[in-house]
């Protein structure tokens, strides 16, 4: 990663008594694709709007190439943005929409025409320049919006859930387009979504938002393998949590006891925990091993449901304490054949694939 290109420093935003953004700090490298992922109301859009200049932060600063952006009004920031809703100018044709930022900048006509053609090619909509927005599908409109936002070569492109109004298949198609366009243009992108799959598919790094702060920043695999908080663990990938007792803790590792029958040592520990305290053990369905044979080192559970999900089979189980644990196995796995509801089975897991979250 090169030197910080865009720096967000302690940004805060309050609407009267409501704190939309508490304290957001972030360094973004040039050319990076960074996604804000988080539940509704966690402050993702507000952070983006502050970057765009539509909202003034209550505190903090934003630096682009080392210089503060905050005193620059929106229209001079030279930032591109694609919105959640369709924002093509309804009275202008597709070509005129893309030309708009260039006309505002008073570029010569020949240059504008060339750029419009280049942009239409980039988003693969050649031949559509005379259409009106109302004659285009939602996906096409968002592609034109992308072309319009990139036409003036902005250093940063903001995208606020641009695909949320589209159906799943179309969404995946345009995700590929966005990836390709990012690679082709090398523009820095800040992307907002609450769809983890979309975030994982698109981004170099993901910032997980929760209640106005960033809980963790990292690549998809980092967040998956090493969630810093229970919230991140819940948000990235599938997970189940079991209450457990801490036997001993230290050096970021813990030994724990579950269901009184079983102890496991050397599990990565997050948060604080001490001998005797209660904690939560996180397990991922796809990292659990299921066995029909009784074993001392396995956790005894009962099968409560089996669901066929195409290439996967989902086995829902219950511990003796009544906690639910899911197991995901590839279709045709020998452990599943002949398995029935109500069967007693034993689950095993690797200490490295589990996480303990203390207080």
């Amino acid at each position, binding site marked *: 990663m090169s030197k910080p290109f865009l720096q967000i420093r302690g940004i*805060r935003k309050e609407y009267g008594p409501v704190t939309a953004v508490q304290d957001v700090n972030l360094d973004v490298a040039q050319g990076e694709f960074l996604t804000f992922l988080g539940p509704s109301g966690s402050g993702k859009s507000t952070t983006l709007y502050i970057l765009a200049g*539509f*909202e*003034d*932060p*209550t*505190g*903090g*600063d934003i630096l682009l190439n080392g210089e*503060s952006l*905050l*005193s620059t*009004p929106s229209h001079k920031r030279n930032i591109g943005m694609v919105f959640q809703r369709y924002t093509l100018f309804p009275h202008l044709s597709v070509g005129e929409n893309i030309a708009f930022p260039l006309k505002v900048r008073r570029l010569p006509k020949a240059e504008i025409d060339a750029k419009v053609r280049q942009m239409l090619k980039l988003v693969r909509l050649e031949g559509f320049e005379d259409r009106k927005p109302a004659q285009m599908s939602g996906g096409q409109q968002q592609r034109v919006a992308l072309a319009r936002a990139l036409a003036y070569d902005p250093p940063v492109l903001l995208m606020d859930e641009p695909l949320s109004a589209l159906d799943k298949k179309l969404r995946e198609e345009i995700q590929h387009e966005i990836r390709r366009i990012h690679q082709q243009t090398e523009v820095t992108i800040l992307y907002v979504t609450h769809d983890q799959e979309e975030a994982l598919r698109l981004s170099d790094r993901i910032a997980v938002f929760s209640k106005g702060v960033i809980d963790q920043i990292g690549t998809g695999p980092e967040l998956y393998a090493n969630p810093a908080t229970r919230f991140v663990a819940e948000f990235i990938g599938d997970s189940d949590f079991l209450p457990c007792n801490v036997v001993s803790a230290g050096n970021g590792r813990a030994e724990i006891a579950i269901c009184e029958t079983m102890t496991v040592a050397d599990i990565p520990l997050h948060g604080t925990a001490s001998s005797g305290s209660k904690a939560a053990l996180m397990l991922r369905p796809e990292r659990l091993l299921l066995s029909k044979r009784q074993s001392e080192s396995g956790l005894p559970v009962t099968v409560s449901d089996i669901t066929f999900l195409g290439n996967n089979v989902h086995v829902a189980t219950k511990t003796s304490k009544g906690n639910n644990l899911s197991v995901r196995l590839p279709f045709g796995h020998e452990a599943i054949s002949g398995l029935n509801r109500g069967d007693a089975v034993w689950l095993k897991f690797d200490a490295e694939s589990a996480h303990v979250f203390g207080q």
Partner: protein
Amino acid sequence: MVSHTETDSGRAYAPTRVRRLTDFELTLPALVLLVLFFVVPVVILLMRSVTEPVPGLGNYVELLGSSTYLRIFTNTFLVSGLVTVVSLLIGFPVAWALAVMPGRAASIVFAILLLSMWTNLLARTYAWMVLLQRTGVINKVLIGLGLIDKPLPLVNNLTGVTIGMTYIMLPFIILPLYGVIKKIDPAILQAAALCGANRWQSLVRVLLPLAVPGMAAGALMVFVMSLGYFVTPALLGGTANMMLAELIAQFVQSLVNWGMGGAAALVLLVVTLALYAVQLRFFGTDRMGGR
């Protein structure tokens, strides 16, 4: 957007920004116009009712105590009520028919409704003055058909006013009623039929109750508009059958009695606003009227 000019830390980061007009400031020119040339004059007029010729409620005592003025109030409410009822009786079937008509036929009816609404009020009133006069077409046709022997007095009385005003108010009741009926899901009436209701029961038990809010809102609007109408009653009613708006004008123009004029204006104003309050309270719409 409200711009904060200072951050928490006290660092001002926006002073270089040109101060934009706030949203409230944008409404100021219109607000000044309205206060200066609407609120102030109306308030002054109403004040004069209790200050001229002498301070006190004398004007109101005279206005509400005399039988001459009482007859004018009766005329006003009578005509407005009649106009409302007749408009409603004619307007409901027309709105209903419009809602089920094929689009082409409906658009012709709409065009005629609009033409009638948009045509100059005086031109329309003039037409009725000519049509209704003793030697006018209506009397001629009636005599020609042998229905009457001598011409009916159709103008310069409340009959003329009622006909002319109904003509003017009809579009104002048909259009909102059409909107209400068009919004009713035909499936509801199919359901009523499946439940065993015959057409008459469907009408009385389902369609009418569903249309009642629209009818009430439209009727109230027509009634209120009629109460304050000036031009049509003045031209079709003749001098002997005055309505409230004419009385106000007469106090001011011929009698130059501002105290009584103000008092009559206040009465009209209070009734109008009270009825609008009822409408807002019970029907919650801000349906608008015309002149």
